[in-house]
């Protein structure tokens, strides 16, 4: 077992989620590797410290604010209480189709943001040196970028506009712009000659992202159809799936869509 693999599994090991086989491999490795043993102690301490963080106390004035708002007659907004992206599914046709696509997109974005490291200057500084560890981090970041792009493309591939409906694509556009920035960064930092397929894929994706970013905020179905067939023809989703960088399990939303290939 490599240290990288071991450290990836330590948190699950702590929570006793590892299989017996995995467990004994980890324990074997840790008994011989001071780095990973240290990593395990660190994690355990972090978890202990997190558990011991004190409860925060809501300020006393808050109840007054709540009570006075309750006193004001108001329409109840029951829909706000269901999970946000589920709301989309409750809308009437034909928005349901679009809603589903956007639900996937939103979940994708959330998942994407779960796994995307903060874009801090520190990170940029780190990768400019490009030690092996930093290269590895860059690869992870590239795979996150691909995963998030996939979510976006799956969301668009699932759009099923009807007739002359206008479709609000502002979310997709904004998301594309964000991904384009990430693409820029990756193209700048990914070393040439190391992983040409990845570099090509990032560049190819960039074109489609640009197309999405340049859509009008409200597009008609012809635009969307064009975009969809563009995605299909370039086989981008297939290539992303093949890229072999997807260390993460596919997100629930992707699996549920069942259409990405």
């Amino acid at each position, binding site marked *: 077992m490599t240290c990288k693999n071991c*450290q*990836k599994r330590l*948190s*699950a*090991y*702590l*929570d006793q989620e590892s299989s017996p086989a995995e467990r004994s491999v980890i*324990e074997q490795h840790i*008994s011989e590797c001071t780095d990973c043993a240290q*990593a*395990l*102690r*660190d*994690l355990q*301490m*972090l*978890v202990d*410290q*997190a*558990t*011991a*963080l004190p*409860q*925060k106390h*809501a*300020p006393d004035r*808050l*109840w007054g*604010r*709540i*009570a006075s*708002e*309750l006193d004001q007659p*108001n329409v*109840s*907004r*029951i829909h*706000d*209480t269901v*999970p*946000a*992206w589920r709301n989309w599914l409750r809308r009437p046709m034909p928005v349901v189709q679009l809603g589903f696509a956007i639900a996937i997109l939103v979940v994708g974005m*959330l998942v994407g*943001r*779960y*796994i*995307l*490291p*903060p*874009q*801090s200057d520190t990170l940029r500084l780190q990768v400019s040196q490009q030690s092996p560890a930093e290269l590895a981090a860059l690869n992870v970041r590239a795979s996150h970028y691909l995963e998030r792009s996939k979510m976006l493309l799956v969301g668009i591939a699932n759009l099923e506009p009807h007739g002359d409906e206008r479709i609000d694509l*502002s*979310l997709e556009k*904004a*998301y594309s*712009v*964000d991904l384009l920035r990430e693409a820029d960064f990756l193209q700048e930092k990914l070393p040439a000659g190391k992983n040409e397929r990845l570099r090509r894929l990032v560049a190819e994706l960039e074109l489609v992202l640009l197309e999405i970013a340049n859509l009008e905020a409200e597009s008609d179905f012809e635009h969307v159809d064009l975009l969809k067939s563009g995605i299909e023809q370039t086989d981008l989703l297939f290539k992303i799936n093949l890229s072999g960088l997807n260390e993460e*399990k596919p*997100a*629930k939303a992707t699996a549920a869509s069942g259409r990405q290939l």
Partner: protein
Amino acid sequence: MSIFSAFRRSTSPPNDNPSTKDADQELVVRCSSGERSAQFQLYEKYKDSVYSIAFRMANDSQVAEDIVQDVFIKVFKNIGSFRGDAAFSSWLYRITSNVCINHFRKAKRWKALVSNGYFETQTETHQAPDAARQTELAPHLEHAIRQLPEGYRMVFVLHDVQGFRHEEIGAMLNIAIGTSKSQLHKARRELRQLLSPILEMQRALSH
């Protein structure tokens, strides 16, 4: 190595043990007829844990207060639709996490995401711990939690800080239990990364 795997769960949020559930149920019934003192009792019971979640998710205490207010307004206005087949607390925390998520979606509206403001915050709670407390981990940990991407942060705060189980978190966030677990593991790894300078300093000092 078994000492590491002896895992703990010492604190837990106000939850759905039977007596709590009954007491809540009674309060819920009284709340649904608009009884203010029952509303106050429910509020008193859960305000701190709701506030703690909001506080660690939001980047400042003002926003956290807004979230708490929003949560309890929603709870009391919609309490008639609460079926009572699940624990009141599960319903409450689902609303809490939902309000947090909605809050971020609204506040940022993806524009901030585009304009590079995503991970920047500018409030008192976001400041690094002062020098006098350099070697104490807790303030650094609070600081680092706020640097986690929101999704990770939510699962980490709910699980490790607030003591919810993955089953509960899955229901709250409407995600698979496996997703909750993997987000948690990623969050912890990232936290260790973020805190590595502090951890190293602590080690150096303790030798």
